[in-house]
């Protein structure tokens, strides 16, 4: 596939760096024998919604954790808003994270707080706003995700889709420049899935932020993203715009988009020959 230039830069995104996130030849492993990512290079322009796709365990979430500074690469550079994330000290990293909103796979809402308190949490921690102002901001964020009426509920009373929307409202509470979404569509019914997908796109455009979505939901992603990276076994194996992906004849992309059981990603993991396993001999 061809690498297309970044598309749809948002006019309302007025931060100074045109490239919101850049990964340059990034390699990461938990130890020498377990290499998770190899030679990952990607460039995400501000205002874009970009999906990183791949099967379970291929290293997608690790990329998000590298961008957020929760992990440090073994080699290569991770640049966010012009700053080298691995080189930041604790204060620098926390200052950067105040500019990043992250939605975790199952929401990661604080279970000892109400929905309102969850969204007020980053505002209370990082601003000196009055309670009245915090209340208004929280209700505005909740209204944006259609859950103003759920402000008083506790997370255990929410459905999976509602919890994901509350987490989305919390992720944008501080009006971040970058939003990271870890499997935002996992386990959602089709209606909730569509709602969350549209919210990600609309909030990205309305707030002028940049969004990185890690997902394996190819159909929903193709509807809302500007660009896609396909990751397999820790490497980028394909990339392109949604139209390029739909038209692609790349075997990996076709297997992923068409949901085929066997292909470049084999159905069987490495194992001894079947005949040998069952002691079956010819003749």
């Amino acid at each position: 596939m061809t690498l297309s230039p970044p598309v749809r830069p948002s006019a309302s995104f007025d931060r100074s760096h045109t490239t919101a996130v850049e990964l340059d030849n990034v390699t990461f492993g938990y130890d020498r024998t377990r290499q998770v990512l190899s030679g990952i290079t990607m460039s995400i322009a501000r205002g874009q919604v970009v999906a990183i796709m791949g099967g379970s365990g291929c290293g997608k979430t690790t990329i998000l954790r590298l961008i957020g500074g929760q992990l440090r690469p073994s080699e290569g550079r991770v640049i966010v808003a012009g700053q080298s994330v691995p080189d930041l000290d604790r204060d620098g990293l926390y200052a950067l994270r105040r500019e990043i909103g992250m939605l975790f796979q199952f929401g990661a809402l604080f279970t000892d707080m109400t929905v309102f308190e969850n969204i007020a949490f980053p505002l209370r921690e990082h601003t000196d706003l009055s309670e009245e102002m915090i209340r208004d901001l929280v209700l505005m964020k909740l209204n944006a995700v259609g859950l103003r009426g759920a402000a008083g509920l506790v997370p255990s009373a929410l459905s999976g889709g509602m919890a994901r929307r509350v987490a989305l409202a919390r992720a944008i509470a501080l009006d971040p420049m970058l939003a990271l979404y870890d499997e935002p569509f996992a386990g959602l019914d089709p209606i909730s899935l569509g709602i969350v997908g549209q919210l990600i796109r609309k909030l990205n455009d309305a707030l002028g932020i940049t969004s990185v979505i890690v997902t394996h939901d190819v159909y929903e992603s193709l509807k809302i993203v500007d660009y896609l990276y396909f990751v397999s076994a820790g490497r980028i194996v394909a990339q392109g715009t949604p139209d390029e992906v739909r038209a692609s004849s790349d075997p990996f992309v076709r297997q992923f988009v068409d949901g085929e059981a066997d292909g470049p990603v084999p159905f069987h993991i490495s194992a001894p020959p079947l005949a040998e396993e069952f002691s079956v001999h010819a003749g």
Partner: protein
Amino acid sequence: MPASTIADGLRRVGAGTRRAVTRLGFASRFTFAVLGHSVEGLRRIRLTLREIYFAGALSLVIILVSGLFVGMVLALQGYDILQRYGASESLGVMVALSLLRELGPVVAGLLFASRAGSAITAEIGLMKATDQLSAMEMMAVDPLARVVAPRFWGGVISMPLLAALFSTLGVFGAYLVGVKLIGLDPGAFWGNMQAGVDFREDVVNGIIKSFVFGLIVSLVAVFEGYDAAPTAEGVSSATTRTVVGSSLSILAADFVLTVFMFRGVGV
């Protein structure tokens, strides 16, 4: 024995030792990190008060009821032994010294470990398993200051108060059995107790013990929760390790503290 078996055995011992040393190193760094974040944590005084409520106030029922029954049993057993030597009037002082010096801090510590320590570990472990700690980090909020330090200090502050209440209810239970049930003279019961209990030697040493046990239980509880594998089984194992580890540590620390505090008893 084949050489490969010996080599395997040595390898396992080496790997186990390395794991243990690594964990000990992490625990030490964690301890310093928690202490380093304590000022930041204590500045969020409402969080620490909340944890005192959860670890302390919600442990009151088990502590008070246990203290009452331990005191009552101590009085019954003590009276049976003391009367053989014609010293039944010393029941009050015997019960008070037993509770203040040993049973109050130790039993309250063991109960605290199983009631509050396990709850702290499970809560932090589940927060980790459900990405709540990671979410906090990604919101530029340090979980050590926001989650761990308040729970640690909540436990440390609660424990001496609970031990004091345990001993108080224990003495009251002994009074009920010794004076009201058996019929000992209340003047002798309280008078001998007042004369035989030394504030510095007995009360203060008991408070020091309970403070140390509070440190041990709280530290083990927050560490095990923070270090728990982020799975149901991992949280379950961590909770068990908290109860077993802190209980054994309390008993070992009690021996060491007793050796230093009561050297006059012949050690």
